[in-house]
């Protein structure tokens, strides 16, 4: 007898619906599996056989053939276990054929019949809904993740016996057996997000302002300063002033996390902007993504959020150069043996570094680095990377009086309110375009969106000559000025906005010449 079960597979960040076909016929007893399978899928044979036995299902000596299609795609993941088991049961007539009508099944099996969680549930369920599948049978641990989508029945199963019982039930009584999971939007709160606030940072007003500007326009930012000047502290607080993710963005980010296998029962949906701070020893693979079984890298996990790179010059040069494409195209293209994948990587780069190897330059009473050493240190950041950073700010050493003083500092919520307003203005301005933030404006559209008055134009010319700016730097100053104007709630860019933007360019020119 022949049966067909719908299941899903992840390919890159996208998902497709796959089919598990099972045929059980008379002949030489055996178990054959075809369809370009990786080892873990091949091993399903043993898991399924033992799991069925332990669920008290006797498999008669028959010739069982399993084919997973589409055949041209390589299958890797243990999520085919449960659909294979169900397929066999249908073929043997132990489950009625109607029971699996329009039903997607996913899950890995343990030998005792337990159903384990799998990765990529979110995009698969999303795809299933598009393809008009009515019901998804998922591992219990993935139920909340699947339930995020809505408009499709999500049935969580803990073990094989429950699954069989559920599928055998007549349609009317199924809901009594296992009720479809309710669509609850679980707010996942990152522990670090809530317990830190900008109000805790004394001094560093200039840096805080720079960060506010960067956050408002989604500009990449670089903070330069001696050790202990609070660069990391400030960076950790940036997520708190960024606008919350919209539902659409949240699904987008969650999809990446789902594919990376980082969603679970406790964290079914990413609702906060991601904050990732890879250590500087990170490998190129881990940063960009990939691997034999491709998974999104750190830059993709930071999609729509913040990628914080502390001690930027300590990262290996090759690792840093990887950032070039994502910083420009907002995605990364990875080609590996089993195909090439495109992962989204639209993050805000927040980088921090010391001004010299010892960290104290230009304070010569503490810094003993030679000019050549400083130059070499700075040159680890290549021009192209530096070119893509819009805001460069300096975090000076904080003196002890400031640290110990109890100051009335602005809290994150107040800053966030201003950032939100600036974002609203950008949303309105770019409503019919692909742009979302000022940082994204192409050089061709600068004239359209960042109009300068004659006074401002004259000032830009003066500044341009004084600072000996490049064309790219010129555009960056204008883009940042646009964001500053948005923060102030102004439609036109004024000289004061340009002045401030120039100051964020100043630092980078001074250090790198």
């Amino acid at each position, binding site marked *: 007898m022949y049966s067909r079960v719908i299941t899903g597979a992840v390919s890159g960040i996208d998902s497709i619906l796959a089919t598990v076909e099972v045929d059980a016929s008379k002949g030489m007893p055996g178990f054959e599996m075809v369809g370009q399978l990786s080892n873990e899928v091949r091993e399903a044979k043993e898991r399924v056989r033992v799991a069925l036995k332990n669920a008290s299902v006797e498999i008669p000596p028959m010739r069982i053939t399993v084919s997973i299609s589409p055949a041209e795609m390589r299958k890797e993941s243990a999520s085919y276990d449960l659909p294979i088991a169900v397929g066999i049961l249908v073929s043997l007539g132990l489950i009625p054929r109607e029971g699996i009508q329009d039903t997607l099944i996913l899950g890995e099996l343990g030998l005792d019949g337990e159903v384990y969680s799998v990765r990529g549930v979110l995009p698969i369920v999303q795809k299933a809904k598009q393809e008009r599948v009515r019901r998804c049978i998922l591992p219990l641990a993935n139920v909340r993740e699947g339930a995020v989508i809505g408009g499709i029945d999500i049935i969580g199963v803990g073990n094989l016996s429950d699954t069989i019982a559920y599928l055998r039930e007549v349609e009317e009584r199924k809901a009594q057996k296992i009720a479809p999971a309710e669509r609850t939007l679980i707010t996942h709160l990152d522990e670090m997000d809530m317990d830190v606030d900008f109000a805790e940072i004394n*001094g*560093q*007003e*200039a*840096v805080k*302002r720079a960060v506010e500007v960067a956050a408002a326009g989604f500009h990449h930012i670089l903070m*330069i300063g001696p050790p202990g000047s609070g660069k990391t502290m400030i960076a950790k607080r940036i997520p708190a002033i960024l606008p919350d993710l919209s539902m659409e963005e949240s699904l987008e980010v969650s999809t990446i996390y789902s594919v990376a296998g980082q969603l679970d029962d406790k964290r079914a949906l990413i609702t906060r902007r991601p904050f990732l701070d890879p250590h500087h020893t990170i490998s190129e693979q881990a940063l960009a993504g990939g691997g034999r079984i491709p998974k999104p890298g750190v830059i993709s996990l930071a999609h729509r959020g913040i990628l914080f790179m502390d001690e930027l010059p300590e990262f290996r040069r090759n690792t840093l150069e990887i950032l070039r494409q994502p910083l420009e195209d907002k995605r990364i293209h990875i080609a590996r043996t089993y195909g090439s994948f495109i992962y989204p990587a639209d993050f805000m780069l927040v980088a921090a570094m010391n*001004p010299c190897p010892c960290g104290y*330059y*230009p*304070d*010569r*009473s503490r*810094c*003993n*680095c*030679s*000019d*050549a050493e400083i130059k070499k240190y700075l040159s680890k950041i290549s021009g192209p990377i530096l070119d893509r950073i819009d805001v460069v*700010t*300096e*975090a*000076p050493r904080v003196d002890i009086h*400031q640290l110990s003083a109890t100051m009335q500092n602005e809290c994150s919520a107040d800053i966030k309110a201003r950032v939100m307003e600036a974002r609203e203005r950008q949303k309105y301005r770019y409503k019919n375009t692909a742009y979302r933030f000022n940082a994204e404006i192409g050089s061709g559209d600068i004239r359209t969106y960042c109009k300068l008055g004659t006074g401002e134009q004259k*000032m830009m010319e*003066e*500044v341009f000559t*004084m600072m000996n700016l490049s064309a790219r730097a010129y555009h960056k100053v204008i883009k940042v000025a646009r964001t*500053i104007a948005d923060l*102030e709630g102004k439609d036109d860019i004024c*000289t*004061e*906005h*340009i*002045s*401030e933007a*120039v*100051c964020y360019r*100043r*630092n980078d020119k*001074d*250090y790198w010449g």
Partner: protein
Amino acid sequence: MIKIIGGKDTIHKTVINNEVSAQKVYACWLDTIYWISSRIKYRLLDVAGSTQSIYQMAQEQVEAVMGKRGCERFVQHREHYKPSRVWNYLAQSGISYTYCQEPDFPQKLARIPDPPFGIFYKGELPEENVPAVAMIGARKCSTYGRCMAEQFAAAFAAHEVNIISGMAMGIDGISQAAALKAGGRSYAVLGCGVDIVYPRTNETLYQQLAAQGGLLSEYPPQMAPRSSMFPPRNRLISALSDVVLVVEACEKSGTLITVDMALEQGREVYAIPGRCTDSLSMGCNRLLRQGAVVASAPEDIIEDMGWGQCHTRKYSGKTSSIRLLETLSPTSQEVYAVLDVLPASQDGIVTKLREKNSTCTIPQIYQGLVELELKGLVMSQNGQYRIIMP
């Protein structure tokens, strides 16, 4: 060792063409023997009478002055290198030479306790009657030291005072570059051959010095720098100047060697005071305690030395900048008031303004800074701002 290009014995032709006395060519030959100290060279000259006779000296005579080992090396050298080849090499490399018996040999050098025998130079020799200040200091200088060096050097250049220094990293190079930028003349005494750029990062300065001053050395061309060669060269820096100005120095600094030499040669020693907590000002402050003169402004030195009248200049500059300030926005004036010649970071400026209970917002402060910078009142270096002295 010296590499010599071109071989033929063309000594007479050279002599006639450039009106160079044969004696000078022989002196030059003698001076390229780097391992003979200048004191011995003078003794050889005493014994032989002229440089040409030194070249032709009998072995016994040489041995009497330099000892057996020295004599052997001398004779060997005499066989390998002909004076004409040495001279032609210098001429081809654009290097000039003068020695103690020539009229153009700087008298300031001749009058010190341990005078050099001769001087190799590129560009020109400093003019005898033009006042000169040696500006010296730490290689790894602070921003304060940098500012002071630039400010003093520019002022000296404006008063046509030459700057003598060692073209080293830090204070030396900064002072010389600033003097040249202000249109002045500057001379570097090197601790290596004059055709070697050391440190390499000062390549541009080296070229400028050759054009707008000179590069001097008592060491023969092609001689690589060695640590033992720098202290003796320091005596020439102080010798060539009337005043030695220590801009910034640590407690134990090579700069202090130059100061010792200067005192021995009877030069005035000035030091720029610093805060007593700054390790880079320890050397200067100590010198001041020991009796060096406080250099609080370049005009002080110029007046003390009687090199010119500075009153008019000093005040006219200030009034013009005050007048310029009055045309600026109130915020810019407020920002200018907290700025200093000592560089301050953007955040430091904000803090200072807050301490003064200013209500300026950060964007306003930035606007002020850019306005001041565009007006040329303030400059930025390494992300830090400071006043440009009028």
